[in-house]
């Protein structure tokens, strides 16, 4: 038949249909004009039209039902796959059929997965092979292993994998009536497996309870990487990362996965959240039954999941799952954990499975969660609650926690908030800050400190890379600068804080609150560097800015005033310091005041009164601080230990050594309990107790304690560090006391060397070391050496201390004595007299040195005999000497 004939056939066919049936045959004969072929075609068509039961009338679905195979489950024939022979049908998924098979030579059982209808399209074959590749790559105990893979003669690919005899996770939990903790532990195992896959750049994308089996031994196996995604860095065109295979179970799919966005680890985080929800509540977060596919998708993308606790509460009412009871607080934490994992907005979800695992661990260890870490109040309260319950954190807390609990806590929290908010994508940064905040893993003590130091160094590198987000960078520089300062790395601190100041001045202006904050930090650093003029100037600058920019009672302004008080205290301007600190205390006691700030200002106020000789007031203030800190931190917190040490110091000054020893011992016990024995904070409490013990002549206990403290500090801070220097000073005194001159000399010498290095040759500590060294030389009767050391000490004091500072007075008295021993009476008398006049101006002159000065002066006058001058002349000489000294 040709086209023309076909046109003719149709034409006759349609015309015939117009006519009554009985007229059709005649019409056909007439129309066909003897074309037999045409006639036959039209007749057949008319027959067909009458009958109307041809294939083409049938519905396609019926046809499909008959032609397309249903599945391999209904009948089973054993087949050979390489060395394996199938034993029975296990199940089928979208892609293929799974059989249980046995390896004939060994008898071991495997699961064989075969791609069904491999001929259909390259896409399906690719996907099947990709699952095979991923399994080959994943070698982890809780992920089913790949054993073998090949292709059948007809091109159908198959692979053999570990046969897992187990039951789906949720069924397991129900059957075993698992407790809440057990469920969370199982969940953590799943997270581990997923995290491992992520480390291999494999995203599962189809996590659900039926894909996770629990074996008899309680271990889990993650199955079905059928729609997993290999994130290949060489293959990462934008289009390729798009989740085209929207095949996963919708109930577990994240909104962005449903929207078809690029595959990411956070899709798995979401699915894990849903899985946790299911484990906790035995329900899925969204009821999708009776919804059309489009309605269901809308629900999944737009609706928020209920809190697991509320779902469970409903079940409790129905008397179900009573074995899953837990406190309200625990459930509240699970709510946060679960709903953070399945947050609709990926930016507010856990950034990685690793972050999720951290919080799961926090939950299991009853520690505060990271996700609420952005609320300082929450963290503090959980922290305190835990300590009040007497649960000690020895395992989790490092020295770093101490740094954080103190002054930096506020700042780091703030820094992290800002960092999280503004650089949510910078996961490395977040991890870094998290680690910083957490302090570390299981080990406590010195080794962790070292780790923290390197962590901070790493943090600096991270910060340097953040030039695209200067605000965050500045925040981080500021934080790291303060941490480096705490760690005694003053030069690094200087660089970091200067960078922070530059950035903030550039971004916010020199008159900004932010710039003021950095000025404060710099001022604090200047104190450590003993650059008091600068420290005071910077603190005052900060206050001026805050006064212009902020309401008078703003916490930032109060903090700046408190800082100025501290600077003035360190400068020895106690009256002014007291004034400033009192002002800060008044502001911080008012509404909106920060309790921990108040506690810190009160401590400094107490210290200022202490140095000003107002021991009663100091004592009262310290008692007040102790009461506040008891309230805020509980009884066994390091903050409380600090207060006890200050109370001990007052008792020490009152020569109530027994009481001082009591306080010091309590403080030491707290630090030991909190940090363990090998921690530098513990070491610090040891040195303080040792001083009291030395005063009580309990050298046999004090010396080993000091040595232990030194070992810890050297290990933690390294051999060249201010803390090491201070302990060497105490040790030197103790050695001197027991007459071990060799050790004493070594200790003071080392102290001087350390201070020269750390403070670039300029700090009154160097003077103290030299002055103490001179005591050793005196005992050894090496007067020239002693004289040399003291003169150097005085030169150092002249540039680092006010001319009438007690230390200057003492050094002069000492120098006078050295000169006296060398029979340089005139020179000696000048020094003794000058020293005495300085000591006499002190609020609490040290009696020992006053007496020494007076006795020496007597000897000198006696030796000088007729040349003995009047008191007035001496006074003038002393004045000249002291003025000259200060001008050095």
């Amino acid at each position, binding site marked *: 038949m040709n086209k023309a004939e076909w046109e003719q056939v149709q034409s006759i066919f349609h015309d015939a249909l117009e006519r009554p049936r009985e007229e059709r045959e005649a019409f056909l004969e007439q129309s066909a004009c003897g074309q037999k072929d045409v006639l036959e075609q039209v007749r057949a068509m008319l027959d067909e039209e009458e009958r109307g039961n041809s294939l083409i009338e049938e519905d396609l679905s019926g046809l499909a039902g008959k032609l397309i195979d249903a599945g391999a489950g209904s009948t089973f024939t054993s087949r050979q796959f390489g060395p394996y022979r199938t034993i029975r049908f296990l199940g089928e998924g979208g892609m293929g059929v799974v059989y249980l098979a046995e390896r004939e030579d060994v008898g071991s059982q495997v699961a064989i997965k075969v791609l069904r*209808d491999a001929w259909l399209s390259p896409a399906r074959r690719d996907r099947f092979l990709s699952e095979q590749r991923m399994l080959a790559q994943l070698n982890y105990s809780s992920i089913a292993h790949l054993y073998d893979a090949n292709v059948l003669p*007809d091109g159908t690919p198959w692979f053999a994998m570990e046969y897992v005899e187990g039951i789906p996770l949720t069924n397991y939990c129900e059957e075993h009536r698992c407790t809440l903790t057990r469920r969370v532990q199982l969940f953590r195992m799943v997270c581990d497996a997923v995290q491992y896959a992520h480390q291999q750049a494999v995203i599962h994308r189809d996590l659900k309870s039926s894909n996770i089996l629990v074996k008899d031994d309680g271990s889990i196996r993650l199955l079905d990487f059928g729609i997993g995604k290999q994130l290949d860095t060489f293959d990462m065109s934008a289009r390729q990362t798009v989740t085209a295979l929207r095949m996963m179970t919708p109930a577990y799919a994240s909104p962005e996965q449903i929207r078809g966005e690029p595959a990411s680890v956070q899709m798995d985080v979401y699915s894990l959240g849903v899985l946790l929800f299911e484990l906790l509540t035995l329900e899925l977060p969204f009821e999708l039954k009776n919804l059309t596919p489009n309605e269901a998708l809308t629900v999944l993308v737009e609706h928020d999941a209920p809190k697991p606790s509320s779902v469970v509460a409903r079940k409790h009412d129905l008397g179900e799952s009573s074995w899953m009871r837990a406190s309200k607080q625990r459930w509240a934490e699970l709510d946060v954990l679960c709903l953070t994992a399945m947050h609709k907005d990926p930016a507010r979800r856990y950034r990685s499975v690793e972050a999720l695992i951290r919080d799961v661990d926090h939950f299991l260890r009853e520690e505060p969660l990271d996700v609420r870490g952005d609320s300082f109040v929450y963290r503090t309260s959980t922290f305190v609650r835990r300590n009040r319950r007497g649960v000690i954190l020895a395992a989790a807390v490092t020295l770093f926690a101490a740094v954080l609990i103190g002054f930096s806590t506020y700042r780091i929290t703030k820094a992290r908030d800002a960092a999280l908010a503004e650089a949510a994508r910078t996961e490395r940064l977040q991890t870094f800050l998290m680690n910083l905040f957490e302090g570390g893993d299981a080990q406590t003590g010195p080794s962790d400190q070292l780790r923290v130091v390197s962590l901070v160094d790493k943090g600096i590198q991270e910060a340097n890379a953040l030039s695209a987000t200067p605000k965050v960078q500045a925040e981080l520089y500021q934080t790291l600068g303060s941490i480096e300062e705490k760690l005694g790395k003053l030069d690094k601190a200087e660089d970091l804080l200067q960078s922070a100041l530059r950035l903030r001045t550039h971004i916010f202006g020199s008159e900004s609150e932010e710039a003021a904050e950095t000025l404060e930090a710099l001022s604090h650093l200047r104190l450590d560097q003993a650059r008091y003029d600068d420290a005071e100037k910077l603190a005052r600058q900060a206050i001026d800015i805050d006064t212009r920019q902020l309401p008078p009672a703003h916490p930032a302004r109060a903090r700046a005033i408190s800082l100025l008080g501290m600077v003035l205290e360190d400068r020895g301007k106690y009256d002014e310091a007291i004034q400033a600190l009192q002002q800060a205390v008044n502001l911080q006691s008012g509404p909106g005041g920060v309790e921990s700030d108040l506690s810190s200002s009160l401590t400094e106020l107490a210290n200022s009164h202490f140095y000003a000789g107002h021991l009663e007031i100091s004592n009262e203030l310290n008692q007040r601080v102790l009461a506040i800190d008891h309230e805020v931190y509980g009884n066994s917190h390091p903050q409380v230990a600090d207060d006890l040490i200050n109370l001990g110091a007052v008792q020490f000054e009152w020569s109530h050594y027994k009481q001082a020893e009591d306080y010091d011992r309590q403080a030491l016990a707290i630090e030991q309990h909190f940090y363990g024995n090998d921690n530098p904070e513990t070491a610090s409490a040891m040195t303080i107790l040792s001083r009291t013990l030395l005063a009580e002549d309990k050298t046999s206990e004090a010396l080993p304690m000091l040595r232990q403290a030194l070992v810890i500090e050297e290990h933690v801070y390294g051999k060249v560090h201010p803390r090491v220097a201070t302990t060497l000073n105490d040790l030197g005194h103790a050695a001197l006391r027991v007459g071990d001159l060799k050790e004493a000399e070594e200790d003071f010498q080392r102290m001087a060397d350390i201070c020269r290095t750390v403070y670039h040759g300029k700090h009154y500590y160097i003077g103290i070391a030299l002055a103490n060294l001179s005591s050793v030389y005196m005992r050894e009767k090496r007067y020239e050496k002693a004289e040399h050391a003291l003169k150097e000490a005085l030169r150092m004091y002249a540039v680092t201390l006010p001319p009438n500072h007690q230390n200057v007075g003492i050094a002069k008295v000492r120098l006078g004595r050295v000169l006296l021993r060398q029979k340089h009476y005139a020179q000696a008398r000048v020094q003794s007299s000058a020293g005495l006049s300085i000591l006499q101006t002190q609020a609490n002159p040290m009696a020992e040195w006053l007496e020494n000065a007076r006795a020496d002066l007597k000897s000198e006058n006696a030796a000088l005999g007729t040349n003995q001058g009047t008191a007035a002349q001496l006074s003038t000489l002393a004045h000249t000497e002291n003025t000259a000294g200060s001008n050095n």
Partner: protein
Amino acid sequence: MELENSVTLARPGEAPDSTLRQRQALDALYSASYEELRRIASAVRRSDPGATASATTLVNEAWMKLARSPDFICESAIHFKRIAARAMRQLLVEAARRKHAEKRGGDYLFITFDESVGQQMERASELLALDAALEQLAALNARQAMVVECRFFAGMEVAEIVQELQISEATVLRDWRAARAWLGAQIRKQENERLR
């Protein structure tokens, strides 16, 4: 709901080459149609009363899923359906061929068929006959073959076919009627010869 394991798309393209993209889109379409057919087929066999979906719903659902994919570029739903119709036809024909081959003792695709009964085989050969006849029809009048594909394999409405093929409704109805009768006759003839 039945979204699970229902849509397969091609792997997104490595190259911007338009032929390749087209091929991949087609691949995606085939896979999607296949999954849909499978789903329908198994539902039909389970005698699920709600599942006797017509070709219309079948293709509509495949379209909805594929249309959301950024990898599937398609000007309109109707155009898609026309392509889908072709895909469905080829899938069914392929399945029928295999069923046929299996009956003849062919060793391939043993996994696929396990309940071979008479009616199935009959439908398989009928479908193959339809396919062959449709080829003949395309040679005689391509437009009419397209109308059949659209209507039979994709369940398209007359109005949709009018729009897609740019012909009048009367033409569509006439084409359909003639083609249906002719194809039916051809199949019957084929079957009679086969059974003789």
